[in-house]
């Protein structure tokens, strides 16, 4: 007996704005451009959109509850509207709430959008993020982070990566193998920011950001926006694009008690999320044809592979070292280049590429067998996890 939510909703539209080092626009512009393209992609009209979910990045978009973006676009009959944020897990999460809404008749076509414009001309990509948590007059217990220079997400992911290395013998070269594999995919993606070849020697030579993380372990920072449209499965067939049916959905937020026995750095919320999503989809990990794994850092991909059971806990390093994530490998992963090489749109990066692969529109990088496409989202410092299982097949 199939799960009652399995394949009852589909992603029917995808819009990607001009992307990357694009200057002179705010996030609202990118959000609007992405939405306009998604609506056209689906073959819908503005008037068909009756739901809007907005995920702001580090620069503002949408205003309180998304109403700013609603009014900017003149969406005058929304039956669903909200602003949401669980970091890089939000894109999948928005699609999940949208799917449940359309399945139960609260809306027909829900737009889910992420947009951000942190890059400014002449400023490094990291500058927009590195200052997070910094204060001239830090106070309270959190002041300890400032006192010891633990600023920004790089510092925290370095701690997680170091812990994994110490526990399981994971090496820099194994992380580098992830960066190299994704660059091979990026070379085949016309909208990837970095398409030039990358070798393991290039990885080894890249500068330290926060040891054990090198620059090439870290995602890009991008200006842009991505929007997707979620519709009922029954309505999807009549629209312009091949539907990407939503087979499975799940989330995992394990919390962090910040004490002995609580190791979210190396054991994330992914197993919890996977369990819900795979049970709904009726699949096992061996059924996954294409993986789009959240990749704010190389390490995030590695720990995700372990936590979904593609390999045993601690064996992520050897698992990725032989190139199986790369073109021609047995587990094609982050096939657009991901956030390490293509574009950094939080959870919309893996989701957008998953839709392209599920539709069979990947061109040079299309994976021939793409019946089951797994999308993972990760937010905060491994605080949030979300899962989507997509398929071109309605059953």
């Amino acid at each position: 007996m199939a799960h009652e939510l399995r394949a009852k909703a589909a992603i029917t539209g995808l819009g990607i704005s001009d992307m990357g080092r694009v200057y002179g626009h705010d996030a609202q512009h990118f959000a609007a451009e992405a939405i306009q393209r998604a609506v056209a992609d689906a073959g819908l009209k503005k008037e068909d959109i009756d739901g809007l979910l907005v995920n702001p990045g580090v620069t503002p978009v949408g205003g309180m509850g998304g109403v700013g973006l609603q009014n900017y676009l003149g969406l005058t009959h929304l039956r669903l509207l909200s602003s949401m944020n669980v970091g890089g897990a939000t894109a999948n999460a928005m699609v999940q709430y949208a799917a449940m809404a359309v399945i139960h008749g609260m809306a027909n076509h829900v737009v889910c959008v992420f947009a951000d414009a942190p890059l400014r001309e002449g400023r490094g990509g990291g500058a927009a993020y590195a200052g997070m948590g910094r204060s001239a007059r830090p106070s309270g217990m959190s002041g300890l982070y400032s006192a010891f220079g633990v600023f920004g997400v790089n510092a925290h992911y370095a701690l997680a990566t170091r812990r994994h290395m110490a526990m399981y013998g994971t090496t820099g070269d194994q992380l580098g193998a992830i960066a190299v594999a994704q660059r091979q995919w990026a070379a085949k993606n016309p909208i990837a920011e970095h398409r030039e070849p990358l070798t393991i020697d290039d990885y080894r030579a890249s500068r330290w950001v926060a040891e054990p993380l090198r620059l090439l372990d870290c995602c890009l920072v991008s200006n842009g926006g991505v929007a997707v449209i979620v519709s009922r499965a029954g309505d999807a067939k009549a629209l312009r694009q091949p539907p990407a049916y939503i087979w499975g959905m799940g989330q995992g937020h394990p919390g962090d008690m910040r004490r002995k026995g609580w190791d979210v750095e190396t054991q994330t919320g992914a197993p919890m999320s996977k369990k819900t999503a795979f049970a709904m989809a009726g699949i096992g990990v061996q059924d996954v044809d294409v993986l789009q794994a959240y990749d704010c850092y190389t390490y995030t991909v590695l720990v995700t592979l372990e936590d979904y059971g593609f390999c045993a806990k601690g064996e992520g390093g050897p698992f990725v070292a032989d190139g199986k994530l790369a073109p021609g490998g047995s587990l094609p992963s982050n096939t657009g280049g991901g956030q390490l090489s293509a574009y950094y749109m939080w959870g919309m990066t893996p989701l957008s590429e998953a839709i392209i692969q599920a539709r069979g529109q990947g061109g040079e990088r299309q994976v021939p067998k793409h019946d089951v496409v797994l999308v993972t989202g990760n937010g905060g410092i491994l605080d949030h996890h979300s899962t989507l299982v997509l398929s071109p097949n309605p059953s």
Partner: protein
Amino acid sequence: MYTKPIPQADDESREFYDGARRHELMLMRCRACRAWRLPSRPRCPDCWSTDTEWARASGRGTLYSFGIMHQKFPGFEADTPFQYAVVELDEGPRIVSNVVDVPPDGLRVDMPLLAVFDDVSGDTTLIRFTKAAA
């Protein structure tokens, strides 16, 4: 001259910072379920009791993880790259700090550590850690 950010105590953390000035590592402890906690917050995350006390911790712990920061931040320019650490205290909670008097290649995750107290300004003491005697 000490150029790095100096944390200011607020109501919830005053006992911690005052304790550090006395060269004592103070932690919150739930009087209902006896669980230690950090950061200091009025409500126990285990049993939700607000019946709370401050108690002196042993100062012993292990190195949960560490990093070497190479990005430049205001106040840290002079000694970048610099090391930072998360220490798992014997009582359970983890605290952000750094490890002193150990060469970089001598740092090992899970190595035993002991709190040391560094009076960085007239009214602020930071709790750092050093290698514990075997």
